[in-house]
């Protein structure tokens, strides 16, 4: 038996293995761990093990209920893991599939002797090796002992030590912190002053720092290594950063396999990777990062991750080799020779995939969502998601990837810097931001030379010359089409005829270099159309049919290629596919079933507002149809997801979620229908154009979606039905706004017409803030109306998730927010079943839901949001699609909403489901995770703009228990050192008195800002007053480490007030304090703290 002895069944009972997840998604630790964890679960279950999952991330696929699986939605801390170990008595624990969070937890459990106490073995790489990879000093010593070169560096634990070290090795230096994910606390220091600033902050959250010589301009290269217990070792994939050293690899554009290194360099680094894995005793997977000198063959080992990582997920998707699945088999005892390569099914898993394509990862940043955040990229990761493009040349993948990541169909030709001055452009090149690739493109458009751009960016010539090529092609096309006189109208036929002129061969070449029909149309328009005429995306899409028709006529069609790990050396039945124009013939892709396929559109890149939860919905949809007669097809381009695991569907197209590409795939598949309502707003936006192109959309009719999304139509419908809504107007002039405000009074909510996660949404409390926010938007006009609505204070926000069939509600479930209306629903803390709503209110809501569903003729999943004050209920919005809360509601209620929706969309028979929510044996609390600590300069305050990067959902017998668990899971830790209070408005101060006793019971020193201290004093609570400008200063009690918990409530939503306390909040975040800024959440939390001991003392834990 290849499986380890102690994992074999005992007395015919399956052995249990604990698998730790990574918790809520945050910057630096995202969906990739759901992917690796889910693969591991599959691998372990196959070998007859029972898997105990501990992970509070309720929207993950790995926390689904399973036959051989128990799921605990608990914080990943030694306390809770020990408690669960005590309940389950597992034989072993696995540390390597839940990122840094799980790794740190296992190291701590081992150090505390808990694992020994319960005789729980660590599977895979052992703790001493994990520590060696994490402790930079130990790591440096180990590397030296095996003569693997490392950059001169020194572990320091004080600022003075840091300065001395830097003096020795010479500036510029970079700092890295030990035991941190995503390069937290890392940075570049050119001077002693910069270094002092950097280390002061970093040492707050990490006891140890590493000071290294800066390797700016060196190539950054990674290897993914797999080693089994017998010592057999392979490197699955290598990857090269487009951006040289200096930008965190998570924020870098990355190509796999490496493109600019030669055979000697490759094998030099490969040999070193294998040597490191051998000497550290890795069992499973590890990742080694290198800096490679572009001028000679010297290199340094930068770091290793002795676990699955973001890069290993990317490498899996880039190669097709299921790294996590194989790694899981290895940690339970298999060796590589015993395993088969799952893609071929016949060849050995001891194999290094050979690719006959290239992949490019581009990160997605949402830096616009955080006011005050620097857009500069450095050694600290800032991106919130990523996409990967697959193609057969660099031009093709860079174009695809840039379209995938921004979904504007423009890609690299988006003209981001068209109007920028040369100075701005030069600065962009020199000081990289998230937009640098566009600046490079624009520089070439302006005739800058390769050498110039290389000198500014140090990006390898090979990459740059391809960008130059694309810029030149655009200029060439503009030149070719340049008319004598610009026109004010262009027809589809004209576009057809014009591109016909450039010949089939050349059009084919343009397509093979990644130009979309939309881009070609846009280039033609910018050459020929009067620049005064602005066309909408919709109009340009219709015009692009000129190119599409011509292409189809000329038989210029994309071909389907398989990802098979062997470059066709062996025949495979791989269902992992991509499309390319750089090919002549499609692979022979088998379709297994006789029924027509159903295509599910995934969510694309994770971003603020669309994350793991929509991947869960997509995976559930696809699995539903995979288990049915239909061929289940997924289209998605996000390498971090479970949906892009080829085993999640019958066929996976790792492709753009663009109108053009989805149509291409529809042409190839001729499906029964396309499901676009499960991947969030991104695919939902395709319903209109796809319907118009006569693609069969399953679920809601396009008209229903349009009616729900179009504010005017939706509002008219509510009026017709007599359903209340906050007053609003779509203003096309300032006069409109003034008139409206006169009527409804401040505060008002301002937002532009198309909203995703509240982009540019703001609440104006007075004229001053209104003027300020309006100055941030485009000039108001009929083309750019601004929607202004009455903002209702002190109202509850309530959501209803449900499924309807032909306008009849099949199921509706109601949840409430802890925060009052005004906090974006994606940031709010959600409670299900609702605990504090009047039954009367619930009845009103159910009535409204029925009426809306009927009038919209909903036929699939939906989510309706309400605000309620007393029993006065108003509708805010209706999403005719699956919502963010679907996994949470499904798992707490035990009813899988997605499955129900699939039944409806597939036209299956289904009965109305009546559920008594009060019968649900526990309460679920969904809380949001913020990543402010990684976003230097961001104000960690919640509002109408969504800012959270992830979420958790925890269960409790009591609301308080669930809340405490979900808070702990989102890094709101019970105060141990002290609390700093700032309690907001007079009204809030009064309200806050409710929980002063709870606060005192925490028995830690309480500090309060002047006004709050005075108020508390007057009510008989003596607290330490702190000041803004004189001692003792508020800032100092934070930086001196006297407090570890900051409660900071805004006085109002006006601009000034928001800025007043922001310094305190920013410093609190930087120093790793827990921080709460919403009064209702603070009150709920402090009340719950009364139950803290009770919760800790409960012997049992709730499992799914």
């Amino acid at each position, binding site marked *: 038996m290849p499986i380890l002895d102690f994992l074999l069944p005992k007395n015919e009972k399956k052995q249990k293995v604990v698998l730790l997840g990574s918790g809520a998604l945050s910057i630096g630790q995202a969906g990739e761990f759901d992917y690796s964890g889910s693969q591991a679960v599959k691998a372990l279950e196959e070998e007859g093990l029972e898997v105990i999952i501990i992970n509070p991330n309720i929207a993950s696929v790995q926390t689904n209920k399973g036959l051989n699986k128990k799921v605990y939605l608990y914080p990943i801390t030694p306390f809770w893991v020990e408690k669960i170990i005590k309940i389950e008595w597992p034989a072993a624990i696995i540390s390597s599939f839940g990122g840094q969070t799980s790794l740190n937890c296992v190291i701590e459990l081992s150090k505390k002797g808990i694992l020994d106490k319960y005789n729980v073995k660590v599977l895979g790489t052992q703790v001493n090796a994990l520590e060696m990879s994490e402790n930079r000093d130990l790591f440096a010593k180990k590397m030296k002992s095996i003569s693997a070169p490392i950059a001169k560096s020194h572990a320091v634990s004080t600022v003075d030590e840091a300065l001395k070290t830097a003096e020795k090795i010479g500036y510029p230096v970079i700092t890295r912190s030990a035991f941190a994910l995503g390069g937290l606390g890392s940075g570049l220091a050119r001077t002693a002053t910069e270094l002092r600033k950097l280390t002061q902050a970093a040492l707050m959250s990490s006891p140890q720092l590493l000071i290294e010589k800066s390797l700016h301009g060196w190539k950054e290269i990674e290897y993914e290594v797999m080693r089994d217990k*017998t010592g*057999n070792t392979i490197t699955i994939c290598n990857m090269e950063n487009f951006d040289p050293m200096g930008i965190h690899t998570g924020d870098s554009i990355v190509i796999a*396999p*490496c*493109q*600019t*290194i*030669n*055979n*000697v360099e*490759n*094998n030099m680094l490969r040999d070193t990777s294998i040597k490191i894995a051998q000497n550290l005793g890795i069992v499973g997977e590890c990742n080694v990062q290198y800096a490679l000198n*572009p001028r*000679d063959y010297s290199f340094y080992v930068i770091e290793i991750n002795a676990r699955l990582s973001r890069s290993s997920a990317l490498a899996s998707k880039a190669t097709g080799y299921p790294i996590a699945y194989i790694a899981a088999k290895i940690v339970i005892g298999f060796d*590589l*020779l015993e395993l088969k390569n799952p893609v071929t099914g*016949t*060849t*050995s898993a*001891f*194999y*290094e995939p*050979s*690719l*006959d*394509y*290239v992949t490019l990862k581009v990160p997605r940043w949402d830096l616009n969502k955080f006011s005050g955040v620097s857009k500069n990229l450095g050694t600290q990761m800032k991106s919130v998601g990523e996409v990967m493009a697959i193609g*057969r*040349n*660099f031009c093709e993948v860079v174009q695809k990837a840039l379209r995938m990541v921004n979904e504007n169909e423009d890609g690299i030709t988006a003209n981001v810097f068209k109007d920028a001055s040369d100075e701005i452009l030069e600065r962009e090149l020199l000081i990289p931001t998230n937009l640098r690739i566009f600046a490079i493109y624009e520089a070439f458009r302006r005739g800058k030379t*390769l050498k110039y751009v290389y000198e500014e960016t140090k990006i*390898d*010539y*090979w990459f740059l*010359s*391809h960008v130059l*090529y694309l810029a*030149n*092609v655009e*200029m*060439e*096309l503009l030149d*070719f089409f340049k008319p004598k006189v610009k026109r004010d109208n262009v027809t589809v036929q004209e576009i057809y005829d014009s591109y016909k002129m*450039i010949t089939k061969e*050349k059009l084919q*070449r*343009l397509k093979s*270099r990644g130009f979309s029909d939309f881009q070609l149309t846009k280039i033609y328009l910018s050459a020929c159309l009067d620049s005064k005429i602005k066309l909408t995306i919709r109009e340009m899409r219709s015009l692009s049919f000129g190119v599409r028709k011509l292409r189809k006529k000329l038989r210029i069609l994309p*071909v389907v*290629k398989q990802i098979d790990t062997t*470059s*066709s*050396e*062996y*025949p495979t039945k791989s269902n992992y596919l991509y499309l390319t124009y*750089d*090919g*002549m*013939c499609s*692979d022979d892709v088998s379709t297994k079933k006789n029924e027509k396929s159903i295509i599910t559109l995934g969510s694309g890149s994770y971003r603020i507002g669309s994350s793991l939860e929509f991947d869960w919905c997509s995976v559930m949809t696809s699995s539903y149809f995979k288990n049915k007669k239909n061929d289940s097809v997924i289209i998605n381009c996000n390498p971090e997801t479970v949906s892009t695991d080829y085993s999640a569907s019958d066929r996976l197209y790792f492709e753009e979620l663009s109108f053009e590409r989805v149509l291409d795939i529809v042409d190839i598949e001729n499906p029964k229908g396309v499901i676009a309502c499960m991947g969030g707003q991104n695919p939902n936006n395709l319903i209109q154009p796809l319907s118009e192109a006569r693609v069969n959309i399953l679920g809601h009719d396009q008209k229903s979606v349009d009616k729900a999304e179009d504010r005017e139509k939706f509002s008219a419908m509510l009026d017709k039905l007599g359903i209340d809504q906050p007053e609003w107007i779509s203003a096309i002039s300032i006069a409109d706004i003034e008139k409206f405000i006169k009527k409804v009074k401040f505060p008002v909510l301002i937002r532009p017409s198309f909203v995703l996660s509240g982009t540019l949404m703001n609440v104006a409390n007075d004229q001053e803030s209104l003027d300020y926010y309006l100055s941030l938007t485009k000039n108001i006009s009929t083309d750019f109306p601004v929607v202004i609505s009455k903002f209702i204070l002190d109202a509850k926000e309530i959501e209803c998730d449900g499924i309807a069939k032909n306008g009849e509600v099949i199921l509706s479930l109601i949840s409430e927010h802890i925060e009052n209306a005004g906090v974006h629903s994606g940031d709010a803390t959600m409670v299900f079943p609702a605990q504090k709503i009047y039954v009367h209110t619930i009845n009103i809501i159910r009535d409204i839901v029925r009426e809306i569903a009927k009038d919209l003729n909903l036929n699939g999943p939906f989510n309706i949001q309400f605000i309620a004050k007393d029993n006065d209920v108003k509708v805010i919005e209706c999403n005719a699609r699956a919502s963010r809360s679907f996994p949470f509601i499904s798992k707490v209620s035990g009813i899988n909403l997605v499955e129900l929706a699939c039944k409806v969309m597939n036209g299956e028979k289904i009965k109305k489901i009546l559920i008594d929510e009060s019968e649900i044996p526990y309460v679920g609390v969904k809380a949001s995770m913020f990543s402010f600590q990684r976003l230097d300069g961001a104000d960690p305050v919640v509002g109408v703009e969504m800012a959270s990067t992830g979420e958790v959902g925890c269960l409790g017998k009591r609301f308080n228990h669930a809340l405490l668990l979900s808070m702990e899971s989102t890094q709101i830790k019970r105060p141990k050192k002290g609390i700093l209070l700032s309690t907001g408005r007079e009204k809030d101060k009064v309200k806050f008195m409710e929980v002063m006793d709870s606060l005192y019971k925490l028995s830690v020193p309480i500090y309060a800002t002047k006004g709050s201290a005075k108020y508390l004093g007057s009510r008989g609570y003596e607290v330490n007053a702190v000041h803004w400008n004189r001692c003792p200063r508020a800032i100092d009690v934070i930086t001196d480490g006297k407090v570890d918990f900051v409660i900071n409530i805004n006085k109002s939503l006006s601009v000034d007030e928001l800025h007043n306390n922001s310094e305190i909040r920013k410093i609190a975040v930087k120093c790793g304090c827990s921080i709460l800024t919403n009064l209702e959440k603070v009150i709920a939390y402090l009340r719950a703290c009364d139950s803290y001991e009770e919760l800790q003392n409960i012997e049992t834990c709730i499992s799914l």
Partner: protein
Amino acid sequence: MLGECEVSKKKEILTKEYKKAYLKLSNGMKFEGSSIGANVNVSGEMVFNTGMLGYSEAMTDPSYLGQILVFSFCLIGNYGIPYFKNKNFFMSKGHESSSIKTQGIIVSDIYDGYHHHDSGISLENWMKDQGVPGIAGIDTRYLVQIIRDNGNLFGRIISKNATQQNKNKFKFLKNFGNSEYVDPSKYNLMPSVSTTKKMIMGNGSKKIVVIDCGAKWNILRMLVERNCEVELLPWDSDFSEVKCDGWLISNGPGDPKNTDDLVERIKKHVLASGKPVLGICLGHQLLSLASGAKTKRLNHGHRSHNQPVFSIPDKKAYMTSQNHRYAVEKSSIQSGWELWFENANDDSVEGIKHKTKPFMSVQFHPEASSGPNDTSWIMNKFVGLL
């Protein structure tokens, strides 16, 4: 397809005209692409390599003689050709012999710049210098599948106004005309790739004779690095007079049975000497034949950097670089000999050794170049036996 010179002229797609070239296959198929390298018509056996790097090493590997090499990886030429300014570049890194040995190459996309610190010429210009043609713009994945599924496939690279290949370049070329498909393994290719005169490299206490059947330079480099005196002998030398501490029978092109009396002479002089012997690739096949084993022709062979092999005694697995079409038949291994390595994908024979005498041979390339260095320990083991 771009290079700095073209780019500066802004001739990318619309105004750039590509010179067409065609690949005709012996199964009747025809592919159109653009001509790269020298404008010469050639004929050869169709083979593919799935390695993603190491095109200069592959193209100069004498084992590819007479073959048209298809690179399955889509982007070739990215890092140019290793340092080349000095014509006297004997044994310089990145090259495995003094000239390109493939008849031609087929790629999807070729990069015509050279920015790598260790390169001195672009791939295309190097091919022009060496008179070797190629075709770019071919769907190499599709072509690989055709070669894989057809087994014996031969091809011709043809373009307009092309000159005919210089027949003096390699001796075997004299065997065939200009417009026919050719199976090079029908001919004895040794005279085309072996040195014509004895050469001595390195110095050390131990002397190794390398029988040159088209030896890759890295074999020689590794022996010299391991402090051996290396005597490179022409394949048709008289071995009876040779005095040495050990023999290495090198890699090379073609069918091991098509090597005149080489197998007989190995049996008679090399094995009879009782000195340590290492056979590599073709050398492994020759040694096996000399031991009495049989060889067979595989469908399309192994040509890649990721052939998984494991050693039979300890189940240790290694990633290897390979380039061969012929293999030893497992059932034919003679008593006295044992299977040493096996392929983890298709169970084919990857190495044999004598049970008592210091004779051993491997089908893969312990000298790698290009490809992984996992099995370089075999060179140490061999040198250690001397």
